[in-house]
């Protein structure tokens, strides 16, 4: 049993292992099979199966009426998805890279996120916006960002960010069934793609039947007592690797919390852990300023700063566009070395 399964709370019904990409597309396929209102649209999602593997096999199973390769206009197909959702469909629109939200943000945050509010609750927009995030493979400043802090900042949409195969499937199913617009952000580095640096945690046991992972509930990825590392997405894997190593070396027994959702944010789980350990590290692959890391810290200090026994450590991307050069890119990303330094600093080791 891995920490993933124990902390899931759900007893595994299978030992079948899937990559995160396969788990995600299986979740989509099961909801598409169960509900004719669900369809998928985006660029290269058909025969190509999504350039990061999010829709592998869907075209063969459901045909081009329900897995739609669109012309290259993000404004068009996200706007169309918004319209279809207001008509009662449950579309899933894939923005190939989150970085391209710039070309279609009006449809996302002025329409997808606000129609329910501005209709006095009369019109629902039950769609999912899937999008690939994250760097670490030399794709430069317009293809490597996480930007989840930005989506979480804008009211009206839920934001989920799975790190494991189990959560990728369960959160996808929850997102499709949710009556709110849900932004589903998958890090390329957790997908288990053959051509990317692979973390072993990108492949794990995934139940065959459809199941939900509740949106807005964090998960303890690794229990610990000396400090709390709050993080999300690929950084969960890095932080867990570092925490395991530091525990084995007798440096510190760090607890790693995988937020899984940013909206709603599970403030209670953050508080509960930090109140217990008294020490907080936040690891965030998004930019440092005005982002998730600050929000997590405020979650603690708003309630009672006196629980903190050491200054908080934030490991995030400094306020520069993400460089393309390998060495430079790895310097800005929250890598194992930086996470270790932060844990050591917060526990005074």
């Amino acid at each position, binding site marked *: 049993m891995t920490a993933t399964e124990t902390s899931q709370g759900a007893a595994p019904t299978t030992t079948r292992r899937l990559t995160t990409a396969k788990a995600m597309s299986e979740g989509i396929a099961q909801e598409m099979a169960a509900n004719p209102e669900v369809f998928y649209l985006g660029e290269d999602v058909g025969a190509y199966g999504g350039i990061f593997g999010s829709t592998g096999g869907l075209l063969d199973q459901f045909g081009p009426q329900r897995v739609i390769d669109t012309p*290259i*206009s993000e404004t068009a197909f996200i706007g169309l998805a918004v319209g279809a959702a207001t008509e009662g469909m449950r579309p899933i629109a894939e923005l190939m890279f989150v970085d391209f939200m710039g070309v279609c943000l009006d449809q996302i945050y002025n329409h997808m996120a606000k129609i329910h509010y501005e209709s006095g609750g009369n019109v629902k927009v039950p769609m999912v916006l899937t999008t690939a995030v994250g760097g670490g493979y030399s794709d430069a400043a317009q293809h490597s960002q996480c930007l989840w802090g930005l989506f979480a900042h804008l009211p009206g949409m839920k934001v989920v960010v799975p790190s494991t195969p189990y959560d990728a499937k369960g959160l996808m199913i929850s997102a499709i069934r949710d009556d709110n617009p849900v932004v589903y952000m998958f890090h390329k580095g957790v997908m288990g793609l053959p051509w990317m640096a692979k973390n072993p945690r990108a492949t794990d046991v995934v139940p065959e039947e459809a199941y939900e992972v509740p949106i807005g509930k964090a998960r303890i990825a690794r229990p610990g007592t000396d400090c709390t590392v709050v993080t999300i997405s690929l950084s969960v894997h890095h932080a867990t690797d570092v925490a395991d190593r530091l525990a084995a070396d007798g440096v510190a027994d760090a607890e790693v919390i995988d937020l899984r959702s940013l909206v709603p944010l599970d403030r209670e789980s953050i508080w509960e852990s930090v109140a217990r350990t008294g020490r907080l590290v936040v690891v965030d692959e998004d930019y440092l300023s005005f982002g998730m890391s600050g929000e997590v810290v405020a979650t603690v200090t708003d309630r009672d700063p006196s629980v903190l026994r050491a200054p908080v450590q934030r490991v995030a991307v400094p306020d520069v566009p993400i460089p393309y*050069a390998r060495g430079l890119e790895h310097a800005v990303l929250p890598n194992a070395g930086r996470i270790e330094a932060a844990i050591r600093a917060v526990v005074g080791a």
Partner: protein
Amino acid sequence: MSDLASPRGPAGPRSVPPGGEAIDFVQLLTPDGARKRPAEYPLDVDADTLRGFYRDLVLLRRFDTEATALQRHGELGLWAPLLGQEAAQIGAGRALAPQDFAFPTFREHGLTWCRGVDPAQVLALFRGASLGGWDPAVHNLHLYSIVIGTQVLHAAGYAMGIQRDGHVGTGDPARDTAVLACFGDGATSQGDVNEAFVFASVFNLPVVFFCQNNQFAISEPNQRQSRIPLYRRASGFGFPGVRVDGNDVLAVYAVTRDALDRARRGEGPTFIEAYTYRMGAHTTSDDPSRYRPTGELEHWQQLDPIDRLVEYLLLTQTGDERYFAEIAAEADALGVRVREACRSIPNPLPESMFDHVHVEPHAQVDADRAWFRAYQSSFETAGGAA
């Protein structure tokens, strides 16, 4: 449901057969090297110019092939091959006047070639060793653009600047200036591109929209972007559109030169669809076998842009085996130079990533830089641990 309304998968039936035969376009050189002389595009090129085109095409193809190989050997992070599109890019690039300004996509290595950018500078960009690559003002060439279609609006805006500077329609050939906006068939679906058409049209901007229809947008065939030939869209926006054989360097040159002249004279925008084919992968991260119909590549290889020029040079006795051998040797030398230059590009200093975030010094970035320095030096004092 009618056939037109039903979505087709990328490997689905094509409404336009691949290749040149059923396509009407401006052609000056057939795939067999026979010269055609359409009245609207008179072109008299001397022997040196013809040989210059040949040299450009061969050297460019070699540079591109070397760059693909360098990426395969881990020397570049990524490469976007132009294989098959050489004539389209050289034809357009050579039609530019020195003062004209061009906006490339990320595949426009032929344009950078024509604008005198050192191939090593292009490689430094793809190697991640330089931010920016080249100074646009030096080469009258904007930076590569990767977010699809965005540069087309910038081109229209740049043309607006030229217009306001009074560098249009003066009749002075050294002063009148045009802008070339490059993009692909996929980009024609973007709002940015269509909005650029609207603005160029109503403000009569000196811009030429140069679309290389290489038949694909990653895996999606161009029928996924349009039900009518792309060049015909122009008429709805109120300016001329023309389709040219994109594998015919003479035709692309003639058509682009004509459109640039119109723009410089103050007669407004033109849309050019250069009908060509991407013979390589979308980028080195792509696997075209997942979507390329069988036989299609072989078909287009019959229409190769270099082969037909060889035929024509032989036919007109402008080039012989000795000349071709000379150029082949020059290409080999370029290959060696490019490989060596690529491997000797120095790695950027890590701290350089904090430069240029803002125009002037910035407290937050300074703080981030200070953190980075301290973090780096923590390894030095710890004896290189971690």
